[in-house]
């Protein structure tokens, strides 16, 4: 029963991904490896689409994976799976808000969780970088890709006029560069 499995996989993702939308990425790689429902290349595309469309990234990525795996029904089930733990946890936390905020155990746990979450996103980044920059077997390394990456890194971090722009600007710009230079060849 694909819907049940989708729900369960995204329930786990929603329960254990701490730190926002990107934190779901390592879980999506894990799902890809174990189930083969979608490829690593598709995941990179999903991140781009999720960043450039309305809605929270984490929700968009779950919807996208669900759709690829089980059509519109799959999209709905994956999204519901992702948000169910959030609803349960937040309803409980909001009932004990003051206690939760001052609990030393809760604060201690998150003191450890935040760097771990960052480290897991870094590991996901390594996979995306490999899929993006390493040439397919039999083709030469394409030096235009790291040049584009360096330009984008500068524009998003160092150039004051552009670094505050929304990510969608850079995604669309990169798409135009990709078409103009024929980057997939």
């Amino acid at each position, binding site marked *: 029963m694909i819907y049940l499995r989708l729900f369960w996989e995204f329930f*786990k993702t929603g*329960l*254990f*991904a*701490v730190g*926002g*939308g*990107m934190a779901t990425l*390592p879980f999506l790689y894990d799902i890809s490896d174990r189930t083969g429902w979608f490829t690593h290349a598709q995941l*990179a*595309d999903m*991140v781009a689409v999720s960043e450039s*469309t*309305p*809605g*929270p*990234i984490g*929700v968009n990525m779950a*919807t*996208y994976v669900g*759709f*690829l795996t089980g059509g519109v029904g799959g*999209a709905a089930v994956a*999204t519901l799976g*992702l*948000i169910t*733990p*959030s*609803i349960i*946890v*937040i309803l409980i936390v*909001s009932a004990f*808000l003051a206690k939760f*905020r001052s609990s*030393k155990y809760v*604060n*201690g*746990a*998150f003191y*450890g*969780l935040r*760097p*771990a*979450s960052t*480290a897991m996103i*870094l590991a996901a980044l390594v996979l*995306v*970088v490999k899929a993006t*920059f390493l040439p397919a077997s039999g083709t030469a390394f394409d030096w235009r890709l790291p040049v584009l990456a360096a330009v*984008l*890194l500068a524009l*998003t971090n160092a150039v004051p006029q552009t670094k505050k722009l*929304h990510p*969608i600007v*850079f995604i669309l*710009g990169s798409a135009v560069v*990709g078409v103009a*230079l024929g980057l*997939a*060849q």
Partner: protein
Amino acid sequence: MKQLLILFLTFAKVGVMTFGGGYAMLPILQREIVENKGWATEEELADYFAIGQCTPGVIAVNTATFIGRKRYGVAGGIVATLGVVFPSLIIISLLAGVITQFSEIVWVKNAFAGIRVCVCVLIANAVWKLGKKSVIDKWTAGIFLVVAAAAIGTSWSPVVFVLFAGVCGIVLQVLLKKGGAAK
């Protein structure tokens, strides 16, 4: 019933207007929820947001559940959350279908080859930003390095790392009083 519908539609609007992650949602929540509807104060919103960041799940979803529950109890929490994800469901389902169909066309392939480079940069920027906030002393640096090495070098489930890091954090808190109150 009508009130729940308004709650749903308001959060659907917030969902449509949010591009990107949870942080992109904050100014929109401030305008819609605090200024237009008066459903929460600036301070409450900041609180919900802070807790939404450090509880499991997508920040935007967590914040919506908080505000919905405050407004109309458990039903409100569920309705607000469904509202915030509703636009994603429609838009992504439409787009995913289109992209899958057109993925073999040459210019689409070229466009995505460029886009993937951009995705790498965006994720790298996210890691840098999160890192500055989460790797704050030698202990968090240690957890970061251990988990990064294990996550890159093994195919263990992320759940293992989450549990490991949570336990480390609690032990450090108990032994060394690490991890102050949430801000």
